[in-house]
């Protein structure tokens, strides 16, 4: 289940030579709440996604990770307002695209997978037909080609029991199988980028692993690039190539997975990883001991008006943190941290 190290290295070298398939620059999104008050959800998020790369986006509830997913394909609630930035896809700014252009991109080039598979599927239509409808909606082809293509997709995702599953209704399938149907819909039109918003949150660990395996295989076979949004840092190790840590709508840390997960630099990332109990078989290693926690919370009312947004909860705060916001500091070519500790 783990890619051998040399393969990963090779993959990354290839990635570096190519240009970004998706480039997000200084994205600002706010929600209009009651009255004319604007509450910011994303405050200047920038990153690049390379072809065939898996970018893990890590953040707790309220960090803006779902807003990020929505703004990439401009599927945001009605009260959302993109107040700045660009989303470049293959050289085109999606934020300036007109509805027809967007419709052509959604599904065909960038597709979205949601968290709750039982809500995203129609309960009384066979799942095979639901995948076929996605194909039909994105290009009118003859009946025979449509059916043939649907069968190919199902064979790709469900190598066993292909026909039985495509003839089933959602309620006849397990949670993991339903999630796979959503994946089938997402890849149906051969997109180059898949955005998955917490796709495994409602599944148990064995099924989670299975779904990650499906994603990994699709990446290898179809060269899909992926933005994988989750609140569970542990899911990303051995899976993501890059990890982006969001905190209160800002990028706290972004870099190669092994360096962010193995040696986190930002105080928030560090504290977050320490708060999960480690799996150790050693007798008496701090069992039942208090887990280290991050004091306070990230609700909007507790965010500071000035300075670094993590400052009130940070254990390594300095005087300067209260005064102004840190700008991303480069630790290496691809690893950036927004913290004064690393600013030179």
């Amino acid at each position, binding site marked *: 289940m783990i890619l051998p190290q040399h393969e990963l290295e090779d993959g990354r070298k290839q990635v570096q030579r190519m240009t970004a398939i998706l480039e997000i620059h200084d994205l600002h999104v706010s929600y209009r709440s009651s009255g004319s008050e604007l509450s910011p959800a994303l405050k200047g998020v920038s990153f690049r996604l390379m072809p065939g790369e898996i970018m893990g986006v890590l953040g707790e509830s309220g960090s803006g990770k779902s807003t990020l997913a929505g703004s990439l394909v401009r599927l945001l609630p009605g009260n959302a307002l993109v107040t700045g930035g660009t989303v470049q896809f293959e050289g085109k700014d999606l934020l300036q695209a007109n509805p027809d252009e967007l419709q052509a991109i959604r599904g065909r080039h960038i597709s979205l997978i949601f968290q709750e598979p039982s809500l995203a599927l129609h309960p009384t239509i066979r799942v095979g037909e639901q995948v076929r409808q996605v194909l039909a909606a994105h290009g009118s082809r003859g009946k025979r080609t449509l059916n043939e293509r649907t069968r190919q997709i199902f064979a790709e995702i469900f190598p066993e029991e292909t026909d039985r599953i495509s003839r089933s209704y959602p309620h006849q399938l*397990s949670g993991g199988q339903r999630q796979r149907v959503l994946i089938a819909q997402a890849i149906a039109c051969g997109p180059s980028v898949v955005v998955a918003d917490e796709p495994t949150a409602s599944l148990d660990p*064995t099924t989670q692993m299975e779904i990650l395996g499906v994603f990994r295989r699709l990446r290898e076979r179809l060269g899909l690039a992926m933005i994988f949004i989750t609140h569970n840092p*542990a899911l990303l190790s051995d899976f993501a190539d890059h990890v982006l840590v969001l905190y209160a709508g800002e990028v706290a840390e972004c870099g190669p997975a*092994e360096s962010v997960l193995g040696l986190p630099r930002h105080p928030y990332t560090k504290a977050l990883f320490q708060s999960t*109990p480690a*799996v150790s*078989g*050693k007798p008496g290693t701090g069992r*039942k001991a208090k887990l280290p926690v991050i004091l306070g919370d990230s609700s909007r009312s507790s965010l500071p008006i000035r300075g670094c947004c993590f400052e009130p909860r940070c254990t390594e705060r300095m005087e300067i943190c209260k005064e102004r916001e840190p700008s991303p500091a480069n630790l290496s070519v691809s690893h950036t941290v927004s913290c004064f500790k690393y600013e030179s």
Partner: protein
Amino acid sequence: MKVEATATGKNVHPLLKVENLVKRYTKRSLAGTPEELLALDSVSFTISPGTTLAVVGESGSGKSTLANCLACLESPTSGNIWFEGKDIVKLEERACRQVRRQIQLIFQDPASSLNPRWSAFEVLVEPLILQRKFNREEIKKRVNYWLGRVGLSQDIVGRSPMELSGGQRQRLAIARALTLEPKLLILDEALSALDCSVQAQIANLLMELQGSLGMTYLFITHDLAMAAHFADEIAVMDRGRIVEQGPPNKIFIQPEQETTRRLLAAVPRIGRGDQSALER
């Protein structure tokens, strides 16, 4: 094989003793013979006061059916549940209510287990009113005490549960369960829906309450890492049976069953450094 000894090693009277518990569901289809589903297949275990038993397993292994049977929400097909020496399976409704007070449940998602149209105060007092034993003064005193105990401030009582954060909501659910001073708390995936940093806060709260009040927990989860951190014993369930039971160290170092090994292999870990713990 009966595991009577507990992790603490003391020879105490068990708080809860479950013997050969069986729950069978019958699924009726429109035509043909009814299908039988064995959700619990002669499950037996004991929990000593002040300890935690974690029940782990994949979805569909019968964990939640077990919780529902123990909380008298469902009646088992056969078998016995001894709570403080009394068999609670055969109790009548009135006596059952007394037992339910002692066994409280906390669910996975506090957003759906708390009434969104009530205020936090109403959520908290409901169990006290239903018991019909307390006057206004006492109810207020208890509510205030437990709010402070779980780390919530007094000024949230007027708010609806939906206006609270996930962590605050789960604290409210815990406070609500504790107002009746139960002896056993069944935590049905009580941490799974929370963010990592909030999980740690709630886990700490539960461990602190166990230390100071001597609470007993049945911790149902699919998070093996948290189970190992939290529990004195771990029981692994697969298709309605407890296939393996023992202290966390044993389960992690020498798993005997295929199910346990599969669950262990699926535990996601941060970084590659921890991998060695499993390969030994």
